[in-house]
């Protein structure tokens, strides 16, 4: 036990704690939009496509996360634009971005001279190496997203529900929609750092599905998952460090156990309610 307390005094672990909480808040909010709008698969595509940016950044020698952000935003806008073209199917477009992005990343890392980075940390995350700069960027994004959703909750809600109608009804809905897509892309880049490209979907879907078990209102789901997500994320990280597990796996399995427990609780609770009613 003492070892654990010592761990909390270490800088890198403190950073990891803040990262897990901030990432949880960001994804709790943005994930609700993603789940409600049914763009989970698009998010998977964006996450994988951003690997291309990481590869190019390595080759040219700038920060990988900057490369990832640029690729994430471009592929997010690309997928939405190309999906509007009639004879292109959206899931095919996502598949194209998904695989081509990964291929570009692999290619550029291969041709980069010298040191080859540890690919595992991008694919499965490396929360324990979160730097102070990354933490500041995450804090900035968290504040922006909270403010953005508090101020524009109503139009965001309607754009998610019926984009065409929002467009006929308000001239700003196009701009809002584009900002939302960019926020989705940036949130995904944040999760890449924390749990990696392959696992990023977990942050954006499991806590939201858990919240959705209890609430059926967009605002309430947003609020609930922005609480469930950081708690699960923090618990996962602490469990991982206590029993020495990979943090990404531990975080996702914590989310999953939350979901299962919530599901069982709801099931037992509703059957009991029915039984009392029938008596």
């Amino acid at each position, binding site marked *: 036990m003492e070892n654990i307390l010592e761990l909390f005094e270490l800088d890198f672990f403190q950073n990891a704690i803040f990262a897990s909480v901030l990432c949880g808040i960001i994804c709790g909010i943005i994930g609700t939009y993603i789940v*409600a709008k*049914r763009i989970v698969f698009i998010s998977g595509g964006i996450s994988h496509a951003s690997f291309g940016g990481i590869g190019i950044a390595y080759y040219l020698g700038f920060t990988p996360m900057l490369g990832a952000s640029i690729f994430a935003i471009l592929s997010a806008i690309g997928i939405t634009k190309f999906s509007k*073209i*009639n*004879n292109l199917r959206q899931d095919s477009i996502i598949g194209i971005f998904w695989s081509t992005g990964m291929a570009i990343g692999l290619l550029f890392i291969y041709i980069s001279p010298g040191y080859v980075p540890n690919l595992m940390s991008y694919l499965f995350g490396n929360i324990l190496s979160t730097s102070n700069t990354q933490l500041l960027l995450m804090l900035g994004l968290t504040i922006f997203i909270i403010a953005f959703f508090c*101020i*524009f909750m*109503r*139009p965001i*809600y*309607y754009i*998610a*529900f*019926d984009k*065409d*109608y*929002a*467009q*006929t*009804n*308000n*001239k*700003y809905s196009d701009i*809002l929609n584009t900002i939302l897509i960019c926020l989705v892309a940036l949130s995904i880049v944040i999760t890449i750092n924390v749990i990696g490209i392959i696992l990023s979907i977990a942050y954006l879907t499991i806590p939201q599905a858990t919240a*959705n078990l209890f*609430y*059926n*209102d*967009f605002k309430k*789901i947003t609020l609930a998952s922005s609480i469930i997500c950081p708690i699960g994320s923090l618990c996962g990280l602490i469990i991982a460090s206590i029993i020495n597990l990979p943090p990404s796996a531990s975080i996702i399995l914590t989310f999953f156990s939350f979901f299962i427990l919530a599901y069982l609780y709801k099931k037992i609770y509703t059957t009991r309610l029915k039984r009392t009613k029938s008596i």
Partner: protein
Amino acid sequence: MEELIELRNITAGYDNNIILDSVNMKIHDNDFIGVIGPNGGGKTTLIKVILGIIKPMKGEIIFKNNKTKNLIGYLPQYNIFDKAFPISILEVVMSGLMSNKKLYQRYTANDKALAMNLLNIVGLENYSNYKISEISGGQMQRALLCRAVISNPKILILDEPVTYVDNTFEKEMYGLLKEWNKDMSIIMVSHDIGIISSHVKTIACVNRSVYVHKSNIIDNETLERYNCPIDIITHGRVPHRVLKNH
């Protein structure tokens, strides 16, 4: 009659596929236009051009009264919705007020009263807190009708409004439309020309081009002349004013 919108030489479609070719059309105050035409003829495309969802390839849409652009109420075809979306009936109706409000503004008690009043008119007053996953297609269609008119638009556009509603509400709806038509111009798309022509004032035949027929009585020869091949199912002496007796 005040002119509200003019479509001048509009060509529109998707990619290289032209659906509407050189369309000219005017929409006036208090019009009640029934839009008919074969499947794929461009009825929905015409509506989407007017709404600004599709940008025309050629030609222009002129809004005579600057305010008109934000004053269109729209009832889309029901089947485009995600039925599992977490939103209540009341929220759906109030979302029609978006054009009247600033992006960050919240709803007032007045907005809510307005929505409840409309829900009362269409018989959904007890369902305001239901989620859209908990109601039937016909009830959803009524809620969407409320959303379309809550902002008190100058023009109301309805795309196949009666597809999911039962006969009782269909009659009620036409009654409501007649009432609302005193204050707003209505454009209604329907595949059922029999029903449409007993309520509308003019008929627009859409099949790549648009012909506006200045009456609600139309016969097969006219339809053929307009290059608008649809079957008129109702014949003879029926209480519709569809066809001349023959």
